[in-house]
C-alpha cells in the first residue's frame, strides 16, 4: 500500500491519487476528496486523530482510519 493522508505530517501537502475505496463516505468525495486535488494537513488532535485538513479549498476533519484509505503523492517544499 502506498502513501496515504494518514502519513502526512503537520503542515505537509500532497496530491490525491486514489479515493475509490468503498469505505470512503460519498460525502467526503463530494467535499472534494477526489484524484488530482491537493490536500494539506493543518492540525492534529491528540493521538494523531482526527486530522484537520484542507482539501481542494474545503476545511474538514476526518478520522485517521478514513484518512488511511486515501492515497496521495507528497508535494515537497
Amino acid at each position, binding site marked *: 500500500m502506498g502513501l496515504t493522508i494518514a502519513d502526512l505530517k503537520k503542515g505537509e501537502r500532497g496530491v490525491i491519487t486514489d479515493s*475509490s475505496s468503498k469505505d470512503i463516505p460519498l460525502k467526503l468525495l463530494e467535499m472534494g476528496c*477526489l484524484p488530482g486535488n491537493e490536500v494539506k494537513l493543518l492540525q492534529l488532535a491528540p493521538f494523531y486523530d*482526527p486530522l484537520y485538513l484542507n482539501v481542494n*479549498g474545503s476545511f*474538514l476533519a476526518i478520522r485517521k482510519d478514513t484518512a488511511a484509505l486515501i492515497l496521495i503523492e507528497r508535494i515537497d517544499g
Partner: protein
Amino acid sequence: MGKQIKVALIGNPNTGKTSVFNALTGLNQKVGNYPGITVDKKEGVCKLSRGVKAHILDLPGTYSLNASSIDENVVIELLLNQKDKDFPDVAVVVADVENLKRNLLLFTQIKDLKIPTILVVNMSDVMVRKGIALDIAELETQLNTKIALVSTRKGTGLQELKTLIEGYKTLPKKQCLDARSIDVDYFERLEKAFPNQEVYKLWLVVTQDVNFGKLARKELDVSKFQTKSNSELKRLQQKEAIKRYQFINGVLKKSQVIDRSKAKDIRSKLDRILTHIVWGYVIFLAILITIFQAIYDWASFPMDLIDTSFASLAEWVKNSFPNGGMLTELLAEGVVSGIGGVVIFIPQIAFLFLFISILEESGYMSRVVFLMDRIMRRFGISGKSVVPLISGTACAIPAVMATRNIENWKERLITILVVPFTTCAARLPVYLIIIALIIPEGTFLGFSYQALTLMSLYLIGFGMAIFSAYILDRVMKKERKSFFVVEMPNYKLPLLKNVLITVIEKTKTFVLEAGKIILAISIILWVMASFGPGEKFNNAESIVTQNNIDIPKGELDDKIAAYRLEHSYIGIVGKTIEPVIRPLGYDWKIGIGLVASFAAREVFVGTLATIYSVGSASEDESIDTIKTKMANERYSDGRKVFTLASGISLLLFYAFAMQCMSTLAIVKRETKSWKWPMVQLVGMSIIAYIFALMAFQILN
C-alpha cells in the same frame, strides 16, 4: 389574496443560509414539523412588490442531493416530487463566497433537475479581505443563471435577490452537466425504461433508494428497474462528482481570481490556539465554566423577580375574586402557581440558548468536535456527540434530534441513550430551589458555594452520561465502520439578529410545550388535592376540632387543612408510595412531586407550591415564596423536611432519573422502537433510586 411565489432556500451548512432566510422574513416566520418526522420545517413570508409575496421554505443544510441523514433527505424528497404542495417555483441556492467551488456542486445538481434556480453568493463583505475577485456577469453566463451578490452582515444585495425571485419565470433552464456522460449505456437504458422522465431525476431516485432506503412520498417507482450493484453505483456517483468538479473548475477559471497574498488569515491564527493540544482544552473548559457561572449569576435577578411577582399575583387573585369560591381557589392555587413554575424558567433557558447559539454561529462548535472526537470515541461515542451533550444542557429533545449528523448508528444510538443524563433546563428550577435551601451562602476562590454545587451537578450529569456510554459500548455489539466528516467552518462574529431569533424561537417553543404539560398537571393536582373520598376528608373539620379543643383558632385551621390534604385523593397516592421513598429521606408530599415529575420534571416545584398552598389555611402567610414555604416544612415531630441529607438525595434523584415524557416520545421516534425509551426509563430510574438511597443513608 395576491400572488404567492413558492421559494425553496437551499444550501450547504455554514453558508449563512439561515441569515438570508432571517434577512428576508424577519420575525415573520414559523417553525413546524414535516409530517411523520421530527425535522424542523421553517417557513416565512417576504413581501416582494405590488402585492406579490414570496413564501419561503428554509430547507435543512445539505452538501449534495445524495442524502445521508433524515434532514438532508427532506431536501431530496421535496425536489424529486413535483406533486408536493411545497414544490418550489424557484430554488434559491445560497453559496459562501469563500467556498464557491464546493458550494457549486449542489447548485449544479439542482439546476440539472430543471428547476429554475437563482444563485446567492453570500458573505460578499469578506471578498476584499480574502483577496477574492468575481466576474459576476461571466459567472452568470457560464452557469446559465442569475446571481445575487449578498452580504447579510451589511444588508446588501437583498433587494436584487427579491427582484430576481419575482422574475423567476425568465430564468434559463439549461443544465450544467449532461447526465448521460456519466455512463452512456446505463443512462440510455434508464431513459428507455421511463421515457417521460428527466434522466437525472431518475438517477437520483435510483441512487437514493440504494443509499437511504425508501423515498416515502415519491411519485416515481423505479423498483422494477434492473439497476447495478451498490459498489458500481457508488463508482458512478464518484464519477459524477468528478465530472461536476471538472465543470465547476472550468467555470471558476474564467470568472474567479483569488489573490492569496492579499488574504488575511484569521482562521489559522485562531486555530493554532483553539485547537491546540493543551490550550484548546483549557479554553473549552474555561468557556463552559463561564457559561454556568453566568447562568447562575445573571439569571438569578429576573428569576427572583418572577418568583415574588407570582406570589403576589396569587395573593391578588385570592383577594380580588369572589371569596371562598371554587374558581378563585383553582385560579390562585392551581393555575397561577402552575404558570409561575413555567415562567420562572425563561431567564435561564434564554441564556442557555443564547450561549449555545453563539458557540454554533461563531464556528467554535466544530473545533470542539475536533478536539473531543478521540476522547469521546474511547467511550463509544463520537466527537459529534459533544454537540448533543452540550445542547442537552438546554433540553434533551433538540439534543436527541441533533444526533442526526452522527454517521455511525451505534455511536448515535448510545448518544441518544445517554443524553438525558445531561442537566437540562427543566432540572434547573428543582436544583436552584433545593440548593438555596440546603447549601449555605459564601464564596470559595471567588465562586459561590451555591454556584459550585450547581456546577458539580452539571459535571455529575455529564460524568454519568460518559460512564453509561462506556458501559453501553461494551454491552452492545460492535459495528466497525466509522464515518466521520466534519466541516470546519470559518470563524465569524455571530450575527445579533440570528442569535436573537434563535433564542426567542426556541425559548418560546420550550415554554409553550412545557407550559401546557405543567398547567394541565397543576390543575389535576389541585383537583386531586381539593377532593377526597370518604368520611375522613369530608368531616375533617369536626374530627380535628374534637381532638384539639384547646388550641388557638389559626393553628386549628392549619391542622384542619393539613388533615384534609392527607386524606384527599392526592394524599392517598402520596401515602401509598411513602414506604418506597422513606429510605431516600422524602415525605409523602415530596412523593407526590416525584410522581408528578415523571410526566415532566419541571413540574416538581409547581407541584410542591400547589400542595403547600392547599395545605395551609392561614391568610397572612400567603405572600410567602415557594422557597420560604419549603424551608418551613416540618414533620409532625418538628424535624425539618429539607435537610442536607434529604436535599442531596433529591438532587441526585433528579440528576439521574428519566422524568420527561416528551424525551421518551422523541427517542421512540428517532430509534423507531419502544425498546430504547423503555431501557432509558427503567435503567435511569433504578440508577437514580440507588444513588439517592446511598446519599441519604450516608449523610443522615
